[in-house]
């Protein structure tokens, strides 16, 4: 771990301090990825810039048309916000699947994205909810669809020193699910996970997005599958068709956690289950 830790209190202070320290520096948020990597001897740095004190990153805000989640919000902190529970059903469903309660008290949403693991649960859920990511570099802001941020495992389009400040999720009247298959019922990196967000008009799927984790080099948007179910009735037949198609969209690998064939098969199973779960809820609501 480095010998110099900088803890700016505001973004203004951050941009002022950066040029004064060694270029071999990294942002430190919850530390759950950075510290484990440093511990294993990766990512040696001269300085860590601890962004956990930046007030601008710590809250959730609601506008007329969207919900803005600060990059520094901890995974466990998400549920406390009414706007998250009301407008982000997929992210809310993903929370209990994310590591353990104590780890959720440490890990941030921004770190989950910047770390760019294909298995990132909060990222996968936010992709299905059509989040955009907002980045800032020395006061200059830009935004892009969250799913477009990722270039490969641990690779993003984030520029040197660029900071993720927030995620903006449009308010759209959707329901959905987050289903994850891991080594245990809860806790652990996924073998495969499916995030489903659908907007219904009666029993017809008016709009859909499907995102998957751990089955491609990046958190994957299954665009074809989402297109295929859009306009169809939410039914077991639709669920089966979606399950068959999604298996052609993913490109899983065999690694320590699982193997490719199993993962591909499970993408179908999880998506079918997610759609059937939504159908059941719709029926129950009458």
């Amino acid at each position, binding site marked *: 771990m480095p010998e110099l830790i900088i*803890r700016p209190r505001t973004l203004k*202070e951050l941009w002022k301090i950066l040029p004064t320290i060694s270029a071999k520096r990294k942002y430190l948020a919850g530390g759950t990825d950075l510290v484990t990597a440093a511990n294993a001897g990766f990512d040696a740095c001269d300085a860590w810039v601890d962004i956990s*004190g930046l007030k601008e990153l710590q809250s959730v805000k609601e506008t007329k048309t969207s919900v803005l989640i600060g990059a520094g919000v901890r995974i466990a902190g998400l549920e406390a916000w009414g706007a998250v529970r009301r407008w982000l059903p997929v992210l809310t469903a993903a929370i209990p699947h994310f590591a353990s*309660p*104590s*780890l959720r008290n440490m890990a941030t949403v921004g770190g989950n994205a910047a770390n760019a693991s294909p298995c990132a649960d909060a990222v996968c859920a936010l992709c299905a909810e059509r989040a955009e990511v907002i980045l800032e570099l020395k006061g200059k802001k830009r935004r892009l669809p969250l799913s477009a941020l990722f270039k490969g495992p641990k690779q993003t389009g984030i520029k040197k020193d660029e900071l993720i400040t927030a995620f903006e999720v449009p308010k759209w009247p959707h329901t959905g699910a987050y289903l994850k298959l891991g080594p245990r019922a809860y806790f652990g990196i996924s073998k495969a996970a499916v995030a489903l967000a659908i907007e219904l008009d009666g029993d017809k799927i008016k709009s859909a997005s499907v995102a998957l984790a751990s089955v491609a080099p990046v958190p994957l948007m299954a665009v074809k599958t989402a297109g295929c179910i859009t306009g169809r009735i939410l039914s077991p037949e639709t669920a089966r068709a979606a399950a068959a198609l999604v298996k052609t969209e993913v490109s899983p690998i065999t690694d320590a956690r699982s193997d490719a064939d199993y993962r591909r098969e499970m993408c179908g199973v999880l998506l079918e289950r997610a759609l059937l779960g939504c159908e059941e809820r719709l029926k129950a609501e009458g």
Partner: protein
Amino acid sequence: MKKEITEIKAVDGYFEICLKINGLTKNLKVKNNEFLLDALRRYGYKGAKKGCDTGDCGSCAVLFNGRPALSCLIPAFSAHGAEVTTIEGVGTVQAPHPIQEAFVQAGAVQCGYCIPGMIISAKHLLDANPAPSEGKIRKYLDGNLCRCTGYVKQVEAVKLAAKKMRPD
């Protein structure tokens, strides 16, 4: 305590940090590559245990600014300005906390290695929720792995502790 200092620099490989441990202000000299768990244990707080050292097992859990966190993943310098509660601050052998009593009475302790972390998680739950459901208890203890008991007695212990802690 507020985080007032914007720069922490190691001198000869050591950071000087100031924090509250179990309600008392302490100045610690921590190595630049040291974790909070190791620093705590070096200063005599041996209740927090080193299990996996990768954030998986939960035996190192302490309350960090009021919430359970894994001290094996917290660089010690990060605790500068923080408030930390270890199992020593929850209760002692002479004056145990009701949760500690309940764990003993329910027979929830075998080798005991995971218990400090479990009690930290249970305390965070019971301080906010005096009558949690069994499902809620299981979710809160989810990150505390135990290799001896099979978890049944520990869930019972938390239920018993909840009863002891309720005013009625």
